[in-house]
């Protein structure tokens, strides 16, 4: 029986004939794969990092102002009374509020003040899913104390338990740490009680205003009740000023905001496209040069009865082999770099199946596309010129 294996492996032979050229080609493809993985990774990291705060909050439904497009970038306040109103809906077990704000943290070493995210809560109510935070809520009840995210950037200076520093010119003590991580909007996070938070406002009018408003409402629903129905009811009730979102919806909204509502998503998307283009150009150059060097040889086998389709297929096979061979080291290198970035920047750099499949797909399309473009040159191979 005749199988494809019987055939002369011309694509592989062409590709591996010159080891130096092959190494250069693979380095080029690997670089392009790495570039795409970095861009996809950063984009993914951006999106993951912006929702990691939401993920540690314990709520089935989330209340936010209609003006809020992102809970991590432009959180807008709404009336705290709305949270109390929510408690009255049948099936609601708990409804609590969270203040979100940015305040200046003073680095105790260089005395520079840097913006830090402040999350203020009622410490009597466990609104977090993170057991480490919940175990320290009791400490938060003291005056002028905070928990600090241990993954906050180094420019905040010492942040460990016992450190005393100023937040918005008021002295605070660090009574504990938790693990959250930075995102593209925040270099660090502190958690404090709502009482301590309100103490930061010196202006009476401002304080009074702040007392009556919050940025986030968290609602726990009785598992036996219909979440969707309660959500619908609340939406009707709060239609004027609030969005009532499930956990999935608020996370999706946050990702959408960064992906579509800011240039950041576009920039990383563009970076991915650039990686794709760079890879296409490298792959094209490699294949085009190879075809050019072998034009007479291609013309010869065209003369003896091979069709243009076979010749184009050979080049496309070459490009796909290049893609696979270049993808693997690119994948490995990316994992190493993801790990390094994650450690250095405390960003959630995760290489998921989706990213791997996406970049592999892009690499195959990139290579096959450049193979097809380069293969047009084969059509110029004129066997008539051989005699």
């Amino acid at each position, binding site marked *: 029986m*005749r199988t494809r294996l*019987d*055939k*002369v492996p*011309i694509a592989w*032979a*062409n590709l*591996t*004939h010159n080891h130096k050229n092959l190494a250069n080609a693979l380095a080029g493809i690997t670089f392009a794969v790495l570039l795409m993985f970095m861009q996809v990774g950063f984009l993914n990291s951006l999106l993951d990092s912006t929702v990691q705060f939401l993920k540690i909050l314990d709520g089935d439904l989330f209340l936010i102002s209609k003006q809020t497009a992102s809970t991590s970038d432009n959180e807008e306040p709404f009336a705290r009374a709305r949270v109390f109103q929510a408690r009255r809906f049948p099936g609601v077990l708990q409804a609590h509020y969270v203040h979100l704000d940015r305040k200046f943290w003073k680095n105790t070493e260089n005395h520079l003040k840097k913006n830090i995210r402040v999350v203020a809560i009622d410490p009597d109510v466990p609104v977090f899913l993170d057991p480490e935070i919940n175990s320290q809520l009791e400490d938060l009840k003291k005056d002028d104390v905070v928990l600090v995210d241990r993954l906050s950037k180094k420019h905040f200076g010492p942040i460990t338990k016992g450190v005393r520093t100023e937040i918005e010119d008021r002295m605070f003590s660090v009574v504990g740490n938790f693990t959250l991580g930075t995102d593209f909007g925040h270099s660090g996070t502190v958690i404090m009680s709502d009482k301590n938070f309100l103490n930061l406002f010196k202006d009476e009018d401002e304080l009074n205003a702040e007392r009556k408003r919050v940025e986030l409402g968290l609602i726990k629903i009785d598992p036996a009740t219909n979440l969707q129905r309660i959500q619908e009811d609340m939406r009707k009730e709060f239609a004027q000023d609030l969005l009532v979102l499930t956990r999935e919806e608020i996370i999706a909204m946050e990702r959408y905001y960064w992906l579509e509502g800011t240039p950041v998503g576009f920039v990383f998307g563009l970076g991915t496209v650039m990686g794709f283009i760079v890879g296409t150009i490298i792959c094209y150059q490699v294949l085009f040069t190879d075809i050019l060097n*072998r034009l*007479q*040889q291609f*013309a*010869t*086998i065209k*003369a*003896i*009865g*091979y*069709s243009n389709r076979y010749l184009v297929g050979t080049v496309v096979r070459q490009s796909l082999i290049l893609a696979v061979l270049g993808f693997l080291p690119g994948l490995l290198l990316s994992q190493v770099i993801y790990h390094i970035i994650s450690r250095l920047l405390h960003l959630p750099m995760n290489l998921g199946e989706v990213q791997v499949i996406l970049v592999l797909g892009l690499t195959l399309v990139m290579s096959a596309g450049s193979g097809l473009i380069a293969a047009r040159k084969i059509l110029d191979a004129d*066997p*008539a010129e*051989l*005699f």
Partner: protein
Amino acid sequence: MGTSTGTRPQDSKSPPPHRKMTILDGLKKEPVIRVQRLSHYYGSGDNKKQILFDIDLDIRPGELVIMTGPSGSGKSTLLSLIGALRTVQEGSLRVMGHELNQMTPSQLVQYRRDIGFIFQMHNLFESLTAMENVKMSLQLKKVPRTEKRDQAGHILNRLGLEERIHYKPESLSGGQRQRVAVARALATRPRVILADEPTAALDKESGKTVVEMLRELCETNDSTVLLITHDNRILDFADRIVNMVDGRIVSNVLVAESVAICEFLIKSNLFANLAASTLTDIAQKMELEIVSAGKWVIRQGDPGDKFYLIRKGITDVVVRSGAETKKVATLGEGNFFGEAALLTGEPRNASVLAKEETVLYSLDKENFQMAIDSSKTFKEQLLNAFYQRQ
């Protein structure tokens, strides 16, 4: 009697070699390549230049044809047209039963698979071994795997490359590369082989091996070989030599037959003293005719229009006198007849009947006259020979 014999009918001392008879037999077959009024141009508009002018050429199965001519004479263009590497513009080109200008591009691709191409530049795939390069052509023929390997190995061995079958072209000498290219072209035993200077890069021994292989394919496979060469060492292998100048065929000599005709002519008293060049000229102008058994070649009383030489077969010379018809002679290979009517201008004085299928070469009246005029001696000898028979 209106006939004369150059040699005794059953006395031919030169038994026709197998090769010659193959060609002779091949001449009866339909041409495998038939070129009719073929013209070709390069460029267009003001830059249009005619390269081939009304080419007519028939090449039959089993023939090894050598094309010669100066550079730019159109040899390569003609070869590339026959190989369907260029499109026929004017005239007809029929190869292996296919009218090339009526074929679709995909049919032309298929057609080329039945042709063995040998290019001056070997153009082997640098990335493939000698064996794989040969397999590339076998692959097109859907040859089973083991057979493919055996055939490729066999032909490479024949060409003295058994130690080099797994070498890539970069590790082979120029001659070895050319032999691999020859192996690639011949591995499938194609019906038509088109070769451009196949022996140019080869030493004497390798060149001889290659041409012997081509010759062998002609004889055993009825393959037709059309090759361009300037290598005088291989001219002896040609059945036909076609010379082209400025896009025209200026001579088309069936070498073996031409030699055979000259040998017959020179053995006769009549032509014995003619220079070789005159004999060759006469031989070239003679046309092949095949007459079936029982058919009349000439009839008594008809006007004389041709001179005949019997190449193969037996004929009876019959004279009618009143009501009586009498066989006066039997003519065979190497005998000639028909010159009397041409010399005297009188009607035929006898009839000639083919006893079996007979192959003849004829020279028309005009060329016969020119041959006579070109050599006074020839004319005198001819007249002497004629009058001696009166």
